[in-house]
């Protein structure tokens, strides 16, 4: 079986690097982009993405906006989306889960979070 392909979306370079490495340690192929726009363009051209892990707070479009775009697209709606955020705000967590996110994890992402994320594939 080929290794799963995860799209990481985060505007912070440090976080893209850390989250990508944590996933790669679990034999995951990672594509990391820095905005929702780039993520949507990538999803439009690539068809082998198995999961999206997105930051919440980003300029222009948030992780929630990405979640909404993915869920309304017939082509993408099946993709599991996990939101990562440093803010522990119950209303925001509920909004993301109600919107179809598989999970909402608190940043910084830790190594132990990865198996939990991977089970959504």
């Amino acid at each position, binding site marked *: 079986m080929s290794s799963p392909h995860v799209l990481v979306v985060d505007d912070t370079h*440090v976080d893209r690097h*850390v989250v990508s490495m944590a996933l790669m340690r679990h034999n995951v192929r990672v594509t990391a982009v820095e905005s929702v726009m780039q993520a949507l363009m990538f999803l439009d051209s690539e068809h082998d993405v198995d999961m999206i892990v997105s930051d919440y707070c980003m*300029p222009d479009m948030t992780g929630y906006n990405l979640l909404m775009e993915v869920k309304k697209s017939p082509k993408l709606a099946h993709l599991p989306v996990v939101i990562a955020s440093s803010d522990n705000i119950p209303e925001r967590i509920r909004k993301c889960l109600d919107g179809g996110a598989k999970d909402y994890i608190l940043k910084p992402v830790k*190594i132990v979070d990865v198996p939990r994320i991977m089970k959504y594939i």
Partner: protein
Amino acid sequence: MAAAALTSQLNALVNNMFAMGLLDDQFQQLQMLQDSTAPDFVSEVVTLFCDDGERIICELSRQLEKPNVDFDRVDSYVHQLKGSSASVGAQKVKNTCIQFREFCQQRSRDGCLKTLDLVRTEFYDLRNKFQAMLQLEQQIQACYPKH
């Protein structure tokens, strides 16, 4: 012999950074992610953090000098710095960012300026120690013949 001495110097430096509360256990997460397939991972992340932090601190001084401070904008920069500090385990800088965000919410320019001075001092102190750490790592690597 030289390598052993440098290694103990490096360990003492890192232990001291933990003891002083500059770093927390997230830094150990980074160390755990580094292995022979990614031998430079920690130094890459630390370098990204130092570059990002310097850029954000410059931007914060610029924003707070303006006659009409856009506190939401200031807050979003502090949020970025808090995020990357949390991701490298820069505990002290992260905690100061939390205070900083409270002053943003209160729309307190004085509070923001004072906290900016504090976060700047803490950030550059940490950056100097990170640079010393990376230098020691390079010296240690140089002790071993290349493959």
